[in-house]
């Protein structure tokens, strides 16, 4: 059973208690959200990288040098 550690700062006492059923359920929901979120971020990062590469290729086709393209940021 998963547990959580609680430090009561008013007493200095540390205790370890089992998660409630509600907390376990929330943990499962969070895990699913993490997987979705990572996939979305990775897809977004890839789309931006692909768009940048495409734009650089088009600029090169117009005659810009690699240094000129790099200077555009």
């Amino acid at each position, binding site marked *: 059973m998963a547990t959580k550690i609680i*430090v*009561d700062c008013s007493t200095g006492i*540390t205790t370890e208690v089992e998660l409630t059923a509600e*907390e376990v359920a929330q*943990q499962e929901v*969070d*895990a699913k*959200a993490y997987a979705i979120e990572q996939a979305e971020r990775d897809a977004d*990062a890839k789309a931006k*990288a692909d768009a940048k590469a495409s734009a650089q290729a088009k600029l090169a086709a117009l005659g810009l040098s690699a240094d000129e393209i790099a200077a555009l940021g």
Partner: protein
Amino acid sequence: MATANTFVQIGSTVTVGSGGAASIEFTSIPATYTDLIVKASIRNATGLDHMLLQFNSATTNYTEIIMRGSGSAATSYVLSTLIPSTNGLESGYVGSDTNIFTNCEIYVPNYAGSNYKSASIDAVQEANSSTAYMVLNAPLWSSTAAITTVTLLGQTYNFAQYSTASLYGILKY
């Protein structure tokens, strides 16, 4: 009576035991300091994950700007409603490589005041691979309540043995 211009540990350092822990909570935080600092060294035993942060166990009214570097790319996000069903502020990435821990510091100014609560978070994940995430986060909790509880939790996986967290109070005046 706390003394001005001091940096004092509140409560005790938590070290996660062999069974792991889903979260670490500092409760009943006194309002006698100016700012709070959380310093954490965290890993899990399963895989890449986020560490989340909650104030007063709240699951809503968080917003956050995140700047993330991976070793090969830098990106930035604004999480205005956070990810649906995610119940805390992102506070860095945590990995599972053996003996390698994420280092994280969370600074919360004016935590006991009545304004909305801003903070700054820096976290550096270490890994035995070419990709490891470092983040600099600017979170906001839109609440006027004084912060009395700070919680760190894994979004997906439990914290592994020997993970630690400590809470400090800063008294400026």
